[in-house]
């Protein structure tokens, strides 16, 4: 029974995301709110299931990463809406983004990750879990920047929201990297090592820095500003699901 439960959770969350997107597309804010809440609750059940079954927080892998990222993105969307109001473009892109994340995992093994003796270590847990948390923040920011590109009336509002989320995501991401460095130091004696993982992690940090250091002649172009704001979110999702 238990091996099938991740698959049931995955399809329930995907179903909610489809309904949420339909409600957002039909401009039904109340119904959208109901499906968003249901999605958050289903994801929460998934996160609790992971924590109870394996005695640790979600770390990586198609099931654990997708459910956790989608859960945090749901919470962030709910908070953003509460404070900043219903933003049509953001809501559409956010729901679409969530659905794409989930559908890209379709066909991959929906199961808990195999256990490893290092998963009892605090720094290992912080490194992997905070990386997923950062992915959720940066993906949420990507939908705000995407909304900022197409929305005309609430353009500055979404750009400001995107900037806030990007900086918060950077803090979470750097904390994850710091914990990862400590893990590396305790495991190999070096605070960092030359590897594919290191290069990809550095690219993500540099992409975040690029968004914060756009020269004025580029920053004036809202489209380039929006695209550069989206890149860290897209890159970290690629890094997590296709590393």
């Amino acid at each position, binding site marked *: 029974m238990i091996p099938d439960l991740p698959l049931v959770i995955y399809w329930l969350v995907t179903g909610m995301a489809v309904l949420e997107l339909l409600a957002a597309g039909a401009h039904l804010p109340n119904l959208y709110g109901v499906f968003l809440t249901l999605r958050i609750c289903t994801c929460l059940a998934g996160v609790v299931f992971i924590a109870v079954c394996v005695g640790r927080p979600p770390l990586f892998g198609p099931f654990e990463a997708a459910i956790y990222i989608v859960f945090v993105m749901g919470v962030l969307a709910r908070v953003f809406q509460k404070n900043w109001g219903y933003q049509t473009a953001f809501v559409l892109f956010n729901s679409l983004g969530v659905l794409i994340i989930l559908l890209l995992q379709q066909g991959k093994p929906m199961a808990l990750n195999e256990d*490893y003796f290092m998963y009892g270590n605090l720094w290992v847990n912080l490194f992997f879990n905070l990386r997923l948390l950062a992915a959720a923040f940066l993906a949420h920011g990507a939908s705000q920047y995407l909304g900022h590109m197409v929305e005309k009336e609430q353009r500055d509002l979404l750009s400001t929201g995107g900037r806030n989320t990007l900086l918060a995501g*950077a803090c979470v991401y750097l904390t994850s990297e710091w914990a990862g460095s400590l893990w590396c130091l305790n495991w190999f004696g070096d605070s*960092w090592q*030359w590897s594919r993982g290191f*290069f990809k992690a550095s690219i993500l940090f540099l992409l975040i820095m690029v968004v914060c*250091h756009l020269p004025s002649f580029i920053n004036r172009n809202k489209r380039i500003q929006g695209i550069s704001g989206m890149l860290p979110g897209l890159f970290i999702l690629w890094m997590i699901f296709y590393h």
Partner: protein
Amino acid sequence: MIQRLGSVTLTFYTLVVLIWLMGAGVFFSTAHGEIFLHMNEVHICDWIMATWEKAPLPVVWFLSLCLGAAILFMNALCCSMGRQWSLAKKSGLFKNWLFFFLHCLFIVVLACHGLILALGEKQSRVHLFPGQDHSFGPYEIQLTDVVFTDDLTILKTPKKRQRALMTRKNIHIHENHALLTLVKNDHTLARQKIRMLSPLRYKSVQVTLVEFVIQGADDRLGVVLNLTDNFLNRFFFLAYAIMILSLAVFTAITWKRPSCTMGKQR
């Protein structure tokens, strides 16, 4: 000149070039796996010397990366000491001082990254068995005892299959250990049980237990150690942590609320 060196445009282009170089690193580390593995095991100068003859391209890539990082370092330094310092001094605002401080910490962290690579000593994958000792600079490491309470067949399993067997149930990380003594000029500096993820630290010296091994027909149990001596590690972690904290505080105090943005729109 300083203004040009500290300009945002230079930052932007340097960052873009560094992203391409890091991307090339992903490609090189896949194409030249062995060379990159070796890069982690020896001092970087030795790696350059050894690699130049057989594969010059990764060396050229590495030197370009160093140049890019050096330009970013200079750029951050000029920007902080020029523009941000005067802005903070002129306005006196906490957020501007914090912004300046944040950039200074970034410079320190970037410098530490480079210096950790170039300074210090390192010996990788030193195999030791109980009763043996090993010299490391002025120090001597003596291995007295190795205790592995779990199933020894896990250690005999080929690496690819080993990972699946190394669960929290099968490997008791807190019980398996090696008893080490760190000696200098016949004087015992430290004597400690080291475990995986729990190394011996004495000042800037670190003795790290990478893995347990068995050898020979009599299943002799030993350990693989990485020996490092780098005084910058602690400072690096401290500066890095303060940088993250500063960024968090800066994000919090400059967090833009919807009312401000809406006001601007009106």
